[in-house]
């Protein structure tokens, strides 16, 4: 019985090796395939400098590869099903761990291979059939963490990362912090060898720690280092539950290599606890009722939403609340809370509306203080931008967010009513109470504001449309032209802007000004911790989720951010993740150029040194060539805006055929 099982697994292992070999082979042959004249995704080859040779294969080749891969995967799955059904006993501790992960319906583990989690790695690919979870090969642990972040925001389902508890976690830490600041659940599995007697030689020692999770404890919600397989099962399910309960945050689970290798003789003696998601905490009814009454009576209420919409339902609820009150919404858009073309989306008028408001309701706003005060960073001064007597109300889980070292909780904001509860979960009650408090005459009175807000929305949109024309033919390409040419090519797809890096302001917020962002999934927010190296891998993770959901993923990629984690492009090529990346290549860390210059101005010491350390020139980086080297279709660098449209048309074709593509656009700073 035991030997039979081993044979089956060896066979599966061999098949997986074949599958891997096909994938690797396909990836390495890609650049040569593109020159095929009949390729639907043929490169724009007329100018080697601006429109580069590509990595996309022909349709036949793609079909053949996909077919071969599917057959191998199918054979592999059948073999596994056979082996697993014939021998239900797990052989090793790591096999049981995979059973636990499967019970949670974990789709993906983003990882760079490492010896402290060899057992788990082998169990994922062989015992688990490399499905639920599938091992996604990452070229850096920082990329792995960002991919898990982006994946969650698109799929609304947690993913795991797996890394050494020492060197791997040090790499991953930055994007775990970004996930922490972004309130994103993430399961970090950390390899470790706890028993020093089990450590075989120098590296094993260097890759072991007494308490690996200590490094990220300040920005994870919970962690554990289970000492038995039963404890692992309970910790994994508990961690999943804690991570996905608002405020959602990453958790870390250290997994002992000795435990992974432990022979399991009595699989039936191990139990996997049932996972039941926690209902998000709802705001206290009395406080919500009081808030509803104040909202109905207010003459100029303003709603500010930041991470309100955890799900598409959050957007629907916000629209309903805003329409009931005819209250303008300012969408900070760490998640897409309000459709951009809804007349009550008055984000562009935030300064004016906040200063005139008699009531401001903040929904999951991380920096509420920053919304009600104006700050002059250069002078390091601030002053309230709200009028005296304004009622300030917040609904959020911020007060349930209990870590102190890292200061992302922002400055303390005194308010009149503070409701601790998940805003999305609280909105149904608030809406019910608003309806209860609303008389017919009050409703009629409030409805008279509609015309004014429609006009404000139209005027603001028109102003943006006119501004977008300014510099339309400029070279370097204006960010307006880049964003609108891109939108023109994707607007008929079921598109999703999966990343804009650390701030949409880097492209002058053109997507939110002029794109029709009408669904929650069309915009996923930013790298919340401001840690560079988020954009590309987060986009790849989100695109992986969108691939299954049939969405067309787009990434506007800043050049500085790109250079931190560009290996994510290879992951996209290797795993056939369709993603259109458009480089916002302003050849600088532009934000820093501006800040250094501002400082030099203030000190009256000249400004011509501001580019030192802040520009990415001499030599200019050829991102298209870089992408091509990783098997990704590419075009550029594009300096003439007239070259942009044909390149984007070709890139869209490549992405629709299931592959990543990159268009390098040399742009204005903002």
């Amino acid at each position: 019985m035991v030997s039979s099982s081993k044979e089956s697994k060896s066979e599966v292992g061999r098949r997986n090796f074949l599958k891997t070999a096909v994938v690797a082979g396909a990836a390495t042959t890609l650049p040569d395939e593109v020159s095929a004249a009949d390729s639907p995704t043929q490169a724009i080859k007329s100018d080697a400098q601006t429109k580069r040779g590509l990595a996309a294969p022909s349709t036949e080749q793609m079909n053949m590869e996909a077919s071969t891969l599917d057959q191998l995967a199918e054979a592999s799955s059948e073999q596994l099903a056979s082996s697993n059904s014939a021998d239900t006993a797990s052989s090793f501790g790591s096999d049981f761990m995979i059973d636990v992960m499967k019970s949670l319906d974990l789709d993906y583990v983003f990882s760079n291979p490492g010896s402290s989690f060899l057992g788990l790695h082998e169990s994922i690919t062989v015992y688990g059939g490399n499905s639920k979870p599938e091992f996604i090969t990452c070229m850096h642990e920082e990329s792995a963490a960002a991919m898990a972040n982006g994946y969650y925001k698109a799929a609304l389902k947690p993913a795991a990362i797996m890394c050494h508890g020492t060197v791997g976690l040090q790499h991953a830490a930055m994007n775990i912090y970004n996930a922490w600041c972004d309130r994103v659940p993430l399961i970090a599995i950390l390899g470790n060898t706890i028993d020093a007697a089990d450590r075989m030689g120098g590296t094993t020692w260097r890759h072991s720690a007494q308490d690996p999770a200590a490094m990220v404890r300040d920005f994870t919600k919970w962690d554990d280092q289970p000492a038995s397989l039963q404890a692992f099962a309970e910790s994994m399910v508990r961690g999943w539950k804690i991570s996905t309960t608002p405020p959602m945050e990453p958790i870390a689970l250290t997994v002992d290599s000795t435990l992974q290798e432990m022979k399991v003789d009595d699989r039936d003696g191990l139990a996997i606890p049932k996972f039941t998601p926690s209902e998000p905490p709802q705001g206290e009814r009395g406080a919500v009722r009081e808030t509803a009454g104040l909202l109905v009576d207010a003459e100029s209420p303003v709603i500010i939403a930041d991470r309100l919409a955890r799900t598409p339902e959050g957007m629907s609820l916000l629209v309903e609340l805003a329409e009931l009150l005819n209250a303008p919404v300012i969408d900070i858009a760490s998640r897409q809370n309000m459709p951009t073309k809804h007349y009550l989306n008055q984000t562009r008028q935030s300064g004016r509306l906040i200063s005139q408001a008699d009531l401001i309701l903040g929904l999951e706003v991380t920096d509420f203080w920053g919304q009600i005060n104006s700050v002059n960073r250069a002078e390091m001064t601030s002053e309230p931008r709200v009028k005296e007597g304004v009622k300030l109300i917040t609904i959020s889980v911020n007060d349930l967010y209990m870590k102190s070292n890292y200061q992302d909780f922002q400055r303390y904001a005194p308010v009149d009513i503070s409701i601790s509860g998940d805003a999305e979960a609280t909105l149904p009650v608030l809406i019910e109470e608003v309806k209860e408090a609303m008389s017919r005459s009050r409703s009629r009175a409030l409805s008279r504001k509609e015309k004014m807000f429609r006009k404000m929305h139209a005027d603001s949109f028109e102003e943006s449309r006119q501004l977008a024309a300014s510099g339309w033919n400029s070279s370097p390409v204006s960010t307006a032209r880049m964003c609108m040419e891109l939108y023109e090519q994707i607007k008929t797809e079921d598109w999703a802007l999966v990343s804009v890096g650390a701030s949409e302001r880097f492209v002058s917020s053109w997507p939110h000004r002029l794109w029709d962002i009408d669904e929650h999934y069309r915009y996923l927010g930013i790298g919340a911790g401001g840690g560079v190296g988020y954009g590309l891998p987060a986009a790849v993770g989100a695109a992986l989720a969108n691939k299954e959901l049939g969405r067309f993923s787009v990434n506007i990629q800043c050049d500085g951010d790109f250079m931190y984690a560009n290996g994510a492009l290879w992951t996209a090529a290797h795993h056939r993740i369709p993603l259109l990346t458009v480089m916002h290549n302003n050849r600088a860390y532009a934000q820093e150029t501006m800040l250094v210059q501002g400082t030099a101005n203030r000190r009256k010491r000249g400004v011509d040194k501001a580019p030192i350390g802040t520009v990415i020139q001499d030599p200019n980086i050829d991102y298209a060539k870089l992408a091509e080297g990783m098997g990704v279709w590419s075009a550029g660098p594009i300096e003439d805006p007239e070259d942009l449209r044909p390149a984007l048309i070709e890139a869209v074709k490549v992405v629709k055929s299931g592959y990543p593509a990159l268009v390098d656009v040399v742009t204005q700073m903002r």
Partner: protein
Amino acid sequence: MKMTALANILIFLCLFGANFAVAQDIAIERGEQTYMRVGCYECHGTDGKGNEAGPPLTPDTLPPEAIANFVRFSPGRMPVYPEEILSDAEISDIVAYLDSVKPSPDADSIDILRGLVSEEN
């Protein structure tokens, strides 16, 4: 006699005009260099067409005196440019450069922007 005088005047005007044009070209070139060196392009674009970080400076560029007054005492996000960093003469050159920039097309003449509407319905 009259013809000679008229010819002289014409020659003078041509030379003056040519010299003026050359001087203007030099001012434009100097202005562009200064514009880039002191970092105006970072927020206002390489040809003054603006973006979210800084408004368009062209067309309808303000006169040098108005710009000088603004940059010397900027109250907002705009960094202050004291005389030591940016002289009045340099500001005049920058204005010459901005005046020389080709105007952008109107939004309605651009196919992509023409059909955009503010609301879904």
